[in-house]
């Protein structure tokens, strides 16, 4: 069982009204793999990554996460959400709670941990993302980079098996991008299974096991970073890479 994939997507389709946003996505992710998803705006990257924890419902095909198939059954959805952490472009921290409360809320309410245990883990995680001194501040009092690191700590506090990142650095000022990427690199090296939508190609080169190029709701090309950067097969991939790497 150890080499069975932790995420399986088979022919996943999604429509927004008449708009066909995902057109048959197939993907398998092994435990501990780091997958980078990239592609032009509107290509369905966010839509796809959000189907994996059911923030978006897929309408055809199969998604199986850690052996549980995503269906309308709310118990399955909640079971999967407990195992899958997510980090958003806009951080989405809870502004009325302190950093510590942001991180401990889910372990206390969902995992039913005692407060002391949740807080001990939270402090450990804040240490890991490098901002233990901010525990008692409110999100509004932190910089963007600090907020995103809190968001990562918040997701990790549920001790998920999989972490989803949807453009975690694209709302950040350049000087803050590195502090967030450093945390993600460390997480990747620690063996976490990660799906990352990003255009940070340095990050992809450093830690990605596989890369997927999305366009118009489909996977156009996939491969190791080496294959994608040095030997892309599709013209669309080449064109897109030349555009983003020229910056």
């Amino acid at each position, binding site marked *: 069982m150890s080499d069975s994939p932790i995420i399986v997507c088979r022919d996943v389709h999604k429509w927004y009204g008449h708009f066909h946003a995902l057109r048959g996505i197939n993907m398998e992710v092994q435990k501990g793999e780091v997958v980078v998803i990239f592609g032009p705006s509107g290509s369905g990257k966010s839509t796809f990554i959000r189907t994996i*924890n059911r*923030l978006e419902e897929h309408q055809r095909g199969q998604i199986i996460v850690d052996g549980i198939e995503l269906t309308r059954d709310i118990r399955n959805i*909640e079971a999967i*959400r*407990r195992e*899958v*952490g*997510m980090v*958003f472009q*806009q951080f*989405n*921290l*809870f*502004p*009325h709670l*302190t950093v510590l409360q942001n991180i401990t*809320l*889910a372990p206390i*309410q*969902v995992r039913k941990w005692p407060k002391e245990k949740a807080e001990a883990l939270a402090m450990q995680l804040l240490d890991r993302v490098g901002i233990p001194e901010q525990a008692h*501040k*409110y999100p*509004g*009092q932190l910089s963007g980079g600090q907020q995103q690191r809190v*968001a990562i700590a*918040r*997701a990790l506090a*549920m001790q998920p098996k999989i972490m989803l990142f949807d453009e975690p650095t694209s709302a950040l000022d350049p000087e803050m991008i590195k502090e967030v990427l450093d945390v993600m690199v460390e997480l990747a090296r620690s063996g976490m299974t990660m799906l990352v939508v990003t255009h940070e190609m340095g990050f992809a080169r450093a830690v990605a096991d596989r890369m997927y190029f999305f366009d118009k709701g489909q996977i156009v090309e996939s491969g190791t970073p080496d294959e994608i950067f040095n030997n892309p097969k599709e013209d669309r991939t080449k064109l897109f890479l030349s555009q983003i790497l020229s910056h």
Partner: protein
Amino acid sequence: MSLRPATAASKADVVLPPPTERYPLLGWVWKHLFTPWHNALLTVLALGLLYLLAVPFAQWALTQARWEVVVVNLRLLLIGQYPLEQVWRLWLSVHVLAFVAGLTIGSTVRAGLWRAVPILAAPWALALVADFDLATRAHLGALPVVGLVAFVLGRLGHVYVRRHVIGLWVIYFPLFILLVRGLTAEEGWLPVVPTNVWGGLVLTFVLTVAGIIFSFPIGVLLALGRRSNLPLVRWASVVYIELVRGVPLVTILFMAQIMLPLFLPSNVTIDRVLRAVVGIVLFTAAYQAENVRGGLQAISRGQYEAAYALGLNSLQTNLFIILPQALRNVIPVLVGQFIALYKDTSLVAIVGLLDLLGIAKSVLAQPAYIGTQREVYLFISAIYWLFSYVMSYLSQRLEKALGVGER
């Protein structure tokens, strides 16, 4: 002695700043009320108008007004026909209120405590000035003492008290109702006082607080219902809200009095005060639902998504993430609605309950007090204003207390 010529000389040398800078108050008046010249004109006009209005009023209030109508009927206006030998229960509930308020202020408020001085002084001033019996004076005299003792206790044990003071407020109203209504038969220690003798400010207070306590959660549920994914829940909420908002409160109060009994088995009779409360609650809940919905709409989708992604279910998401933010954003509107509710309780006078306004009308119907409408209505207006102001003030404090750390 030798100093004198010297000082005189130096005084002459020093160029003094203009008087408006030497005296801060004068400076403020000059700067804000008299510059530029058209401001001066407005100030003079406003003062003139104020004078034209205030002088006749003061003349009337001090020389012609028959304030004895208020003095003689004060008990009636405040507590209605509540039996005299049971009035200690009302006093007890006021003392408990002073105690809980004292604990709250002592354990939470640090700055600006001088503002409590007039509140503490008022009962003593009243006891000294007004012509009350001994027991009333004793109670009035004890009130500030109770408040102060509680204040000191609250301050001494502030860490512990702060944690539990909310609980005290939660049980206060049920305790108040228990005291006012009673528990036992005639000869027991706390005989039941039937609601048909409840009246005056006490009744207004009961209607207001019960209205607030019950309409608020129902309003929140209706607001959530109106945004629910379940069509049945959504439509039921919409229909309820829109139906109720289309009908005047008076109509609802009449319907509650006349129609509520139709829905109940004939052996169940519900009390007239309770019927009024039901009417007020049903009415206010519809408005609060829309106010709360306004707050909910301001919450971004990202907040829901972050909560769901963490594995919180929708109840937990609403309870811990959405409602705390949504409600805080609409505190001013919510409190505005409660103030409106408080004043609208006066409509129960139309269905025959003797609340503050109802009692005022019955006082005015006494032959001895014909022609004293001005005095009586002014007095009850002052009472309405006083408590409205307290609510509005508390809401501002609450906003400040909850706003900490936000953005």
